[in-house]
């Protein structure tokens, strides 16, 4: 009985969590229009630009560095196998396609989760603990609109930009490999890469960037809004935000990849 009760309770908690995320997503979408600089609130727009700088430009160096290293690792690992078959030139296909479709968006998401997802939950969680979120509500200011919407809009703009930077870094790192192993110039390498890539790869990459960005913002903020239990609760929420975001991003990646494999070849 205890086993069934705990399974039931856990299931209800998971459903409530997903339901809460869904409601927050809908409220976030509805309040995002207030961010626009023309008819919306100038305060929200200013906050959005600040968020763009923090989560976008701030993450650019580390995203490029990690994606570049990943591209080079892919080239080395793939090259070691392909050389045995005399097909070393296929490293270009390997790096180009895997960085664009898969590793670019995924590595970007993981860096952004580490930098921003945890910070969203810690920031909002601290505000919950210090009654600042209650103060917003008591002033008739919607916390979703005030705290989440600028982050969401900034993420929707910056996540595709970061992903493009990540893909470019990875591909350029692959070019470094082919330059030293195949004696191939960067121009030839890039032309060969562009021939390999199709529009579907780029569109799927951008769709993944937007989906991953949505997950990171909403899970981070949701965990923050749920904080209870003081500073310990804030720490727990930051950890939970990172773990749950990574899990959901990988799950979404799997679903998106399967979808593109099955329906858009």
């Amino acid at each position: 009985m205890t086993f069934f009760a705990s399974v039931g309770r856990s299931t209800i908690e998971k459903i409530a969590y997903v339901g809460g995320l869904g409601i927050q997503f809908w409220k976030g979408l509805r309040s995002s229009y207030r961010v626009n600089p023309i008819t919306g609130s100038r305060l929200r727009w200013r906050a959005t630009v600040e968020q763009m700088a923090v989560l976008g430009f701030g993450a650019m160096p580390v995203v490029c560095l990690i994606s570049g290293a990943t591209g080079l690792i892919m080239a080395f690992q793939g090259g070691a196998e392909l050389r045995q078959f005399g097909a070393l030139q296929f490293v270009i296909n390997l790096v180009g396609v895997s960085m664009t479709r898969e590793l670019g968006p995924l590595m970007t998401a993981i860096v952004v989760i580490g930098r921003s997802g945890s910070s969203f939950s810690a920031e909002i969680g601290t505000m919950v603990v210090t009654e600042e979120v209650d103060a917003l509500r008591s002033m008739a200011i919607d916390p979703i609109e005030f705290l989440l919407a600028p982050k969401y809009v900034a993420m929707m703009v910056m996540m595709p930009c970061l992903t493009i930077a990540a893909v470019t870094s990875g591909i350029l790192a692959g070019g470094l490999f082919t330059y030293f192993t195949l004696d191939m110039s960067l121009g030839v390498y890039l032309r060969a890469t562009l021939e390999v890539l199709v529009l579907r790869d780029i569109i799927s990459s951008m769709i993944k960037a937007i989906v991953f960005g949505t997950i990171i913002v909403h899970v981070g903020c949701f965990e923050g809004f749920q904080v209870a239990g003081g500073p310990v609760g804030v720490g727990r929420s930051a950890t939970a935000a990172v773990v749950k975001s990574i899990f959901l991003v990988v799950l979404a990646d799997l679903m998106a990849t399967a979808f593109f494999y099955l329906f858009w070849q």
Partner: protein
Amino acid sequence: MSETAIHPALRNHLRDGQPPLISVQDLFVQFGDRQVLQGVNLDIYGGETMVILGGSGSGKTTLLRNIMALDRPNSGHVYIKGVDVTTCPAEELSAIRRVMGVSFQSAAMFNSMTVGDNVALPLREHTKLAEPTIRLMTQMKLAQVGLSGVEDLLPSQLSGGMRKRASVARALAMDPEVLIFDEPSAGLDPIIAAGIDELIVHLQEAFKMTIVIVTHEMHSAFLIADRMCMLHRGKIIAVGTKEELQSSTNERVRQFLERRADEPDDESPNFVTGF
């Protein structure tokens, strides 16, 4: 106010022909298995200062959070200016919240903003005033609470008492009809706490606001209150003027007023001897 303009739920609660500005009716709140509020009824009329007294865990902050519509009760109603804030739509609730100013126990200043930006926030959010006007109004509100020249400081650079005052300035920003204080002197030394009490009295005299204060500081309560109520285990056990409360024969009220500890339970061990 004509009888027909008064909300039907408030018609039996008139005082001098006026309905209460805030009316709490049959409020029940439960957290898990714990019943925090058990059928609370309380009327607060325009222009009066109501102090809600009670020991720790008596439900006073829960009552205040329900009055501010920050929490939803399990059952019962809270009417503010004739609007039931427990059931009204979000737009109406937003309009009601704009006539209320709240000073939280922890001051709840936004630590990432300057004091000036904190006070200006409701004005920037809810009005179309030009920035120079907002800045001027911010300075005025801070001056009203005795804090001039701190606009550019961060809340972390203020003392506890100054932060409390700044939070009152923010609560006053929209010229509210109702001002709510949650434990205004909590964590402050007696001199600073006395200054906050004086500020509350001054605000009431100057602006004739309706003020609701939750506290367990008896000295403050008797200095500030027009009327007081006392909560015990989720129920209001006494409500009336200062004099009426002072002459109450309710044992719990007397114990609270006379600052007497609970009688030791015969079955519980003695904390000093361990027997």
